[in-house]
């Protein structure tokens, strides 16, 4: 299991994921400092929000692209068949793959969170909440990217599906408000869409509750640590079990 995890980390180094992501985040940090410096007031808060928000987006995009293309290439190069030829069960393979991706995200998220924490050093608890929830969010994202890239044959399709999932999960709170405020009759098309969206919301994680940059500015007021820990603990096994169920039926 640890060998597979090490293999994932080595492929990340081979693909220059660390260099690419850290360079992009460093660039976004520079732009954030520049943009924040132009604000009429609250320049520090501006820099913190820009850095946190842009870093989160860069990391999520980076993780999705890496996982989807890595898995697809592993299929194309028959690396997966090679790994499975060793005495490793399919569920152990899935778990070790996710563990490798999770370790990879931790290696990137934690140093970035430390830099953000230095900027927002007046809000220590807010920074801890932000870092913990960002890590949980990344774990969920790589689990979903692994799941979808093992199902879909196209890496591009998997990437697009992951973006759809991410944006949907980040907007789920908003959709629930819309459904609640809906005044359409239940039989109309909008009523059906409401029901469809409501059903979808059962299976989508509430990522809109994760990694909010306001915690870095005002402290973790209104944040629920237990919620995003529970959401992560509930959603990752759900995704991994789905992945295992699909992967067990795969013919090589």
């Amino acid at each position, binding site marked *: 299991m640890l060998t597979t995890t090490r293999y994932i980390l080595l492929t990340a180094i081979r693909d220059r994921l660390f260099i690419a992501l850290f360079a992009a985040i460093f660039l976004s940090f520079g732009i954030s400092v520049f943009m924040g410096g132009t604000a*009429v*007031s609250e320049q520090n808060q501006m820099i913190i*929000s820009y850095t946190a*928000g842009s870093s989160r987006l860069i990391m999520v995009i980076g993780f999705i692209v890496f996982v989807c293309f890595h898995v697809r290439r592993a299929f194309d190069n028959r690396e997966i068949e090679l790994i499975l030829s060793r005495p490793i069960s399919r569920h152990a393979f899935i778990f070790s793959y996710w563990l490798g991706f999770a370790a990879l995200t931790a290696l990137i998220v934690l140093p970035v969170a430390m830099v953000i924490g230095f900027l927002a050093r007046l809000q220590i608890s807010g920074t801890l909440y932000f870092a913990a929830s960002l890590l949980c969010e990344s774990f969920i994202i790589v689990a979903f990217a692994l799941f979808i890239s093992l199902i879909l044959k196209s890496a591009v399709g998997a990437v697009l599906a992951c973006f759809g999932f991410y944006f949907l999960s*980040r*907007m789920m709170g*908003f959709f629930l408000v819309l459904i609640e405020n809906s005044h359409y009759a239940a039989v109309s098309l909008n009523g059906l869409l409401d029901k469809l969206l409501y059903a979808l919301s059962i299976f989508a994680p509430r990522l*809109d509750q994760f990694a909010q*940059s306001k915690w870095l500015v*005002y402290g973790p007021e209104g944040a629920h640590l237990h919620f995003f820990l529970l959401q992560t603990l509930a959603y990752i096994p759900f995704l991994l079990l789905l992945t295992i169920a699909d992967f067990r039926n795969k013919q090589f």
Partner: protein
Amino acid sequence: MAANRLLINLPLILAVFLQAALWYSSRHIKPDLAILPEVPGKYEVKALALGDDEFYFRALGNRLQMSGDTFGRSTPFKDYDYVKLAEWFRVLDSLDGKSNYIPSLAAYYFSLTQRHSDTIYVINYLQETAAKDPERKWWWLVQASIIAKYKLGDKNLALKIAKKLENIPGDIPLWARQLPAFYLADMGEKEQAIIIIRDLLKNYKNLPPDELNFMYYFVKDRLKMIIPEELQNAHREER
């Protein structure tokens, strides 16, 4: 060979002419670079914030600050649509009501318009934002009253806003509560100004010596009125 070349070159020349004709007909179609972008709805900004309201608030706030001065333009404030601007302020407040960024943008930046009548929109917004959390945002009432007095030139409005400061709960500086007295003195309503000073003396015990001194000399030198007895006593005790 020549026929082959003609077969390629003729459609190429036709394509170039077609492109040139299209350019001719579309050369006046330009992007609408409005000074202020269209105001999004409150739901729209919530959806587009993707759960991180603060990040989107800062991004939109910065965009609003830069609006009119983008794409190589430099737009005087008199050309801005202040009705639209005030709507922008309100939408951004719905994303982050705690921040002082938008009120400071309104009070220190957009209030500098050459068309002084437009400042009423800034004043109204500042009053609204201060009313949501007066203990923390009383400063914006002070700014609103100053803009009303010196930019809009409406002393009665300035006084009306300043009077709101008198009854704000919490620990706000005494000079802010005395602001109506200063305005009344300026308007020649000295008796009214004295009433405010007396009210403050009645409601606030153990005033610091500097505040008492200020009140004493304000009545003596600025208002040139007889010092109220309670002020005289308090001033004497402090000395």
